[in-house]
């Protein structure tokens, strides 16, 4: 593997991991928002 191979390997791994992490955060945020919406609406309903 030539020098550029190593460079792209490193850059590739780093940026894909960061992107994956960002997606996982976004997914967790969406899930939590959905849960909050559901919990808040049901709690209002039981007043």
């Amino acid at each position, binding site marked *: 593997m030539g020098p550029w191979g190593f*460079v792209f390997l490193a850059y590739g791994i780093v940026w894909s991991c960061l992107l994956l*992490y960002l997606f996982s955060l976004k997914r967790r945020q969406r899930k*939590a928002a959905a849960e*909050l919406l559901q919990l808040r609406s049901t709690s209002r309903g039981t007043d």
Partner: protein
Amino acid sequence: MRETDQKQGRGRTILGALALLSILVGLAWGLILAPPDAYQGEVQRIMYLHIPTILIAYLSFFIVFVASCLYLWKRERRDDILAYSAAEIGILFTGLTIIEGSIWGKPTWGVWWTWDARLTLTAILFLIFTGYMILRSLIEDENRGAICGAVLGIIGFLDIPLIHMSVYWWRTLHQPPSILRPDKLPWENVHPSMLLALSINFLAFLLLYFYLLALRFRVGEMQDEVKKLKLYGGQ
């Protein structure tokens, strides 16, 4: 409360956009505009990743330390959320640093791993972060988890200078001069264009880090509120 959430969300988006912009500029400088190193060739470009990520890993640990101290002092939930958010992102950046260091090492030194001071220290940092995350996940009570995590965060941070000293002494006292690795950071005697590429990339990673941290913090706040609502209903 909804308005501050929206304002924070907008702030995060702006931060994210700035991060993306500087990342693209950084990539352009790092991969194209900066010249290759005289000795290391193109492989040196990995340093534009490696140096920012290791610095940010240490920054993250520092934030864990400060948040831990604040939590033990004031016992406010948000300090604990900040602590484990910084730990989670810190472990990510530390892991990336190790991978980058290893990939850089193969063409440079011929091996995927070596027990030199810097790589060893990064591995130790990774182990301490891992210990923190596993500790948090294995303690069920939330308050106890926060306190125990804070203790580890503080002790771990206090230990880092001692770990550095001992690992550096260990490596320098045992290395025969003929294979002494150059321990100077690559920014001594360096082409100004490379220094610029390094600075831009560092700024890019820094902005990205704070964006991720802000987002992780927000997720933590929301998960906290979900837990509270499930426990106490509509109070």
